[in-house]
């Protein structure tokens, strides 16, 4: 009798502690490549999110709850991502974080939409920190999706504005990865150049397979023989690093205007050849003047993860905005958080960040920077780092692009 009572008590207690434990943690699933050619891209973002979560937890968590981020390796494969998404949902994740690969993001948006329609009360939110195909906040926009990175048209607008100021550029070569994102970049480049600099000749518009090319020498050779004055590329991860490796080898001095020149290893691949030649447009660089706290964060990141550099500033923005939204809503449930995120504005290290309510696209200042050997923080363990180009600051208002999104909100 006594034993039975104790058993019941124990069972009841364990159920109680179990529910208490789950209520105390906000589970976020980080679904991105953690191995393979794009592994470094995923891992450096994952470590950024982890550090951001640690800081939030150390400061008392979100509304008193702890944030827990778990990594799920999707190998940049949309099909694999859906398997990992299911795994994450089974593990109780309510927030999905992904960024590498618009093909993956597209699959996840559709899957999350479907899941939320079928499981009212158990909705999940998708925080996209790097998949920048414009469609996700235009025709494909979803209430469940929030993008914390400037999309391809916004970044391209920054690049084409820069080209507009440089009358020496007459011929432009576009090279990119052959999938939805690379195609979006090429389309944006052609359209915007035609508007801003109709005199520019596009001497090449090339797409190569994603993550398959080992040797970019034939491509750089083509770029050289086309006589291009500048190259525009949306390449990221290994495709960025290898493209620049081949470009450095070929010895040409064509400037490369990139979205993701900050991909790990790219600056190291170029070495001295990158100075004044490799450009990137991003939401922040470590060599911008910043607060002592931001410098401390940059140094803490490097100390904790010496193989990477502080690059994913937007990961910290994502977490800061999530925390602010949850506190504003007084809840960590996805729907109130989503409503609170709409129109939310935070002061981040390099300016403001506002989550536009109409399409869930973050609005923030953008910076065009170039590789330089005269910087406070080098990257890839070299003395070369990113330096703001003169006139390279694009204000939040100037970076804004219109949207066609007709947001459907849950009633």
């Amino acid at each position, binding site marked *: 009798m006594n034993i039975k009572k104790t058993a019941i008590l124990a069972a009841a207690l364990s159920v109680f502690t179990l529910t208490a434990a789950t209520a105390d943690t906000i589970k976020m699933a980080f679904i991105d490549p953690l191995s393979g050619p794009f592994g470094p891209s995923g*891992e450096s973002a994952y470590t950024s999110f982890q550090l951001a979560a640690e800081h939030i937890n150390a400061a008392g968590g979100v509304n008193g709850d702890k944030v827990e981020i778990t990594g799920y390796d999707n190998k940049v494969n949309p099909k694999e991502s859906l398997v990992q998404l299911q795994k994450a949902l089974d593990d109780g994740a309510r927030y999905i974080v992904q960024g590498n690969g618009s093909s993956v993001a597209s699959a996840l948006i559709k899957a999350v939409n479907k899941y939320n329609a079928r499981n009212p009360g158990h909705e999940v939110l998708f925080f996209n920190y790097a998949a920048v195909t414009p469609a996700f906040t235009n025709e494909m926009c979803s209430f469940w999706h929030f993008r914390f990175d400037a999309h391809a048209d916004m970044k391209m607008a920054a690049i084409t504005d820069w080209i507009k100021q440089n009358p020496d550029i007459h011929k432009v070569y576009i090279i990119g990865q052959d999938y939805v994102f690379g195609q979006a970049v090429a389309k944006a480049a052609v359209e915007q150049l035609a508007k801003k600099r109709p005199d520019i000749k596009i001497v090449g518009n090339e797409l190569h397979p994603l993550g398959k090319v080992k040797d970019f020498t034939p491509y750089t050779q083509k770029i050289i*023989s086309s006589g291009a004055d500048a190259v525009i590329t949306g390449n990221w991860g290994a495709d960025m690093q290898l493209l620049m490796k081949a470009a450095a080898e070929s010895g040409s001095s064509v400037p490369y205007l990139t979205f993701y020149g900050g991909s790990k290893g790219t600056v190291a691949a170029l070495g001295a050849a990158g100075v004044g030649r490799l450009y990137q447009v991003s939401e922040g660089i470590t060599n911008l003047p910043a607060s002592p706290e931001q410098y401390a964060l940059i140094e803490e990141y490097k100390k904790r993860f010496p193989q990477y550099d502080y690059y994913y500033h937007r990961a910290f923005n994502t977490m800061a905005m999530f925390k602010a939204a949850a506190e504003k809503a007084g809840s960590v449930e996805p729907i109130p958080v989503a409503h609170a995120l709409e129109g939310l504005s935070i002061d981040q290290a390099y300016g403001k960040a506002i989550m536009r309510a109409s399409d869930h696209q973050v609005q923030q200042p953008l910076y065009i920077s170039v590789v330089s050997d005269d910087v406070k923080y080098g990257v890839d363990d070299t003395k070369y780092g990113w330096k703001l180009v003169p006139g390279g600051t694009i204000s939040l208002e100037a970076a804004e692009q219109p949207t066609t999104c007709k947001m459907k909100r849950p009633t």
Partner: protein
Amino acid sequence: METIVFALVNGVIYGLLLFMLSSGLTLIFSMMGVLNFAHASFYMLGAFFAYTIMGATSFWLALIFAPILVGLIGAAVERYGLRRVHVNGHVAELLFTFGLAYLIEEIVKIVYGKTAVNYRVPSILDFPAVQIYGADLPAYRIFMLFVAMAMLIGLWLLLRRTRAGLIIQAALSHPHMVGHLGHNVPLIFMTVFGIGCALAGLAGVIAGNIFVTDPSMAVQMGPIVFVVVVVGGIGSLEGAFVASLLIGLLQNLAVGINASFADIFGFLGLTSASEVGSITVSSLGPVLPFLLLVLILIFRPQGLMGEREL
């Protein structure tokens, strides 16, 4: 013109690299009649070993010792693994090498991490050697060319001009007869397997720093090596050589061609507005070797220079 010249140079270098990889595979096949699925894994091991040795000492020591180390591992795999599995037939051998490929990949992931290591071109060779039409050809690529040529000549001399080569050739086609003549056939098999793996390792040493050294390099290189071996004719060294160069040139030349399907098949009424017509030859570059594989299997199943069918 300059595009063609450059594509030729790069194509030959890439082709010779492919040959370095596939020569071992084709030798092992003609010897044991088994396709070694783990062959590209030895290529990967070569690159990782070279990275480690170069970090501790110099690139030149890595160039010598990494392939030897890989060859020893290969020999051990043959001696203690394949030879025992051999009794159970070809399917068992095939499955064994298949499993081995996964095993090596996982071990590499545990030891070196899941992402790429920073294996770099030695600084002494990191300068532009010649300029062709305004583009630099790095000294390291020329060095690759020389290493590949030296390996090619060395292998040819070993097989065709030495007594050991004579015995190996005999053991490939008539192992029992060679055994009856008093030669240690299992030892020959082990040696050939080891040499084949060492050649793959050497390819890894010289290619790992110009491409990427990461745990997925074996999986990415694997299919193309099989294409070379099948196109050349399984078991034929000459065939592998021709196929390697053919595929190296094909891939490099294709990238340089801007023409689309609409330009080529325009006379059939294909326009560039259509889905098929807008495909360009350059975007097909990576697919071409596999297209070649399919065509060869249909029209010449024994391969370009092979003697037996699959």
